Structures are given as C-alpha cells and as structure tokens.
C-alpha cells in the first residue's frame, strides 16, 4: 500500500517492547553486591580471562542509583538483610536480581540463625544461580539467560497478562496438597501496579 510495505524485514514495523528490550539487555550495569566467596568469583569473572566487559558489564555501578542489576553474591546475614533491601530500594526501575551462589539462593550450607535462607525472602529474584561458588562461566550463563529474559519481557498491560498466565500455568503444574489447591482454584486477582519484576514470574531457575 505504501513505502512501508515495500521495505524488507519490517524495518519500520517493530514494537516498542522489542526496542526497549533490545536496548535494556545490552546496557545492564550491575550493582555488585559482593558479600563473600561468590564475590571473589564475580571479581574473577570481571577479570581478563572470563571477561564481563564483553557485555559492557565490567563497569560495576557502585551506586545503586545508576545500577540495573543487583548480583547478590554471597551469604546474606541477618545484620546485612536491611542493608540489602535498602540498596535494592534505591535502585531505579527497571531492575533485576541475580542471586549468585547457593547461599544467596537458599541459605546454602548455612542453615542456621545467622543467615537469611535465601535472598528471595527480601528481594524478588530473577535468576537463581547455584554453585558454591559458581564458576565464572556459570555466572556468565546466568547473565546471558537474564539478558534473554530482559530482551523478551513485555511492557505494561502485556506484562500483567503474561504474569497472570504464568502464575496459572505454574499453579496447575505443581503437585499441590491441601490448602494450596483451593488457592489455585480461585481466580487470582490482577494487580494494577505490577512491580517491574513480578515475584512469581521471576522464579526461573538457571541450570
């Protein structure tokens, strides 16, 4: 009908979602929350051999105000938990969280009074990365998966619908027992202000 249809590969017909996703995935600045042993492996990932600079992520933004990604690397103690939450709150939307290592994902080998059993008690997590500590290659795999997720995440109303659908699918999938089954049967309320990283949609486990 016009010039637009003659231009190959739909150059002028892309969506805002795709452009935003494409841009966001390629400019992630980590607010490295290096706590313990995983922080050392994160440092090594920024080192010359495994090179985080290939993603543009070697510039760790130490101020959370300019950071997009919080990599919680290491065990979170009870004393550190409020600090973690505060740093997360200080980050501007859109933001994502990778919990690196088993201590951040679930408390790890330290199932005791001093360690928060999984940083998802405090902040919503996008990628869980197991390992004690995970190799730099594993961290990069998690980052690549996160890039994938960022690039394909929807915006606005589409996102809310996506969260809704994901939640229903998950609830149907789990072998639920007792009370939870009733929750699954009832229609889940749609929240008007879904957070940038909805908690349920964020539970994608990294291999």
């Amino acid at each position, binding site marked *: 009908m016009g010039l637009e249809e003659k231009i190959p590969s739909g150059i002028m017909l892309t969506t805002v979602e795709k452009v935003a996703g494409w841009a966001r995935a390629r400019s992630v600045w980590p607010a490295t929350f290096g706590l313990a042993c995983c922080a050392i492996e994160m440092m090594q990932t920024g080192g010359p051999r495994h090179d985080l600079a290939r993603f543009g992520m070697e510039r760790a933004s130490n101020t959370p105000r300019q950071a997009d990604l919080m990599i919680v690397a290491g065990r979170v103690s*009870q*004393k550190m938990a409020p600090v973690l939450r505060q740093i997360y709150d200080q980050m501007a939307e859109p933001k994502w969280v990778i919990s690196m290592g088993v201590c951040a994902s679930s408390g790890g080998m330290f*199932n*005791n*009074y001093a360690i928060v*059993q999984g940083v998802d008690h405090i902040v919503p997590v996008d990628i869980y990365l197991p390992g004690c500590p995970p190799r730099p290659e594993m961290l990069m795999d998690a980052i690549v998966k996160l890039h994938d997720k960022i690039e394909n995440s929807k915006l606005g109303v589409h996102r809310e619908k996506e969260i809704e659908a994901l939640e229903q699918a998950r609830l149907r999938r789990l072998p639920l027992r007792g009370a939870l089954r009733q929750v699954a049967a009832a229609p889940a309320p749609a929240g008007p202000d879904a957070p940038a990283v909805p908690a349920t949609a964020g539970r994608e486990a990294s291999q």
Partner: protein
Amino acid sequence: MSDASAGTPGAGEPREEQESANLPAVAGQERLAERVVRTGMFGTRTTGDTSGYGGLRVRRPPVISSQPPYGSYFDELAGQVAAALQADGTSFADAVEHVVADRGELTFHVRRERLPQVAAKLRDDPALAFEICTGVSGVHYPDDPGRELHAVYHFLSITHNRRLRLEVSVPDADPHIPSLTGIYPGCDWHERETWDFFGIIFDGHPALTRIQMPDDWKGHPQRKDYPLGGIPVEYRGTKVPSPDQRRSYA
C-alpha cells in the same frame, strides 16, 4: 609342642598379669569407681539407637589436672610465673587453681580475680615476655555446674618463642570476668565477641556491645542451650529438619 601349652603362656614369660593388683577382680573395682564418660555403643544419646548396645558404659578418666613435672619448657615457665607472682606477694596456688599439661600445651586455670594480675606479669616480666595475647574465646559447659562458662586466653611470647593458655571459669549465675583490655588492647574485640556469643561480661571493658550479631539480638548464640536455628529444608513432598533437630548417630 603339647596341647597343654598351646593357649597358655610359656614358662619363661613374666607373669605380670598374675600380680594381685592386676587381677581382674581388683582392677575392675577401680575401674567401676571412675566416672562414666559415655553410655551406649557408637555414642548414641537419643532413641535413635536401634543397635541394642545402649546398655554399654564406657569409663575413662578425664584429664582434670596435671602434676609437675609437666615436661618440655612448662616447668621452667611455671616456675617463672610463680616467681613473678611471688614478687607481688601472691602465691602461685592463690592465682592458679590447677595446671593442665596436655597435648604439648600448658594451661593455667586462673581464678578470675587474679586474671589481670597474672596477665600483667606475663606481659611485663622479662623472663616471661608474652607480648601478644592472641585473643579470648569462650566455651560453654552446661554440664559443669558452677563453672559453666570458660574464657580461654592464648598468649604468645615472641622473645622466648613460647605459648601459654590461661583459662578462667565462671558460673552462669555470675558471668563476670575482669577485662584485659587495659593490659592487652588487642583483646578488645575478642571480649566483645565472647560477650556476644556467650554472655560473659568483661568488667572494665570500655564498650562491651555486640559485635557480630545485630545490636538488638536477644540471646547468646554459641551457648549450648541456644538452638542452631535452621529451618526445615523443603523438598517436594517432604521436609528435612535442620541439623540440630535431626536424628543423630553420634
């Protein structure tokens, strides 16, 4: 070789085991008088014991105190400490309840009121010259009434290349120990940590506050009566309790 001699000791061997003191009846009496240190085979203490060996009683005398000579440089050291204390008019027995020389290490169990005096002598006396106190740590013995909390100090002498341990025992009801920060400033944080984890109060410490736990924490976590505090680990369909709640095989 005749059959009669097959299982019996040869004629020329000493008959030590036939001495009256070593006969089973007598030696057994002495053993029965000792304290029971463990019951049950494989050390099971809960109802997890299905082996039927729960009736076993193992008696072994604990190392409570050593008598001189202690061995190696310990005697010389004890003599020097005694001499240093004597200069102040304090006798060795006044300050030190008992001495343990075990596993190549010397431990003085010091009375708490004498602790600063002994520490000052360790630091200042040139024959002793324990320049460095590497720190305090606590141990909690709930089964030892009246002496539940122990504070253990390790000293290092660079000049003489020697080590010494001082141990102070205090009851739970009155967990006060004089602070050594005036003599060894490096003990500052160690005493705070021992207060934080065990509840031992160091009198004279400039700022005895929590150091590892959050400031508003209740309880002293490394005491034996404080639980480990884990949560049950969830799997699909089951939960595994935290390590201190699990059935123990030891």
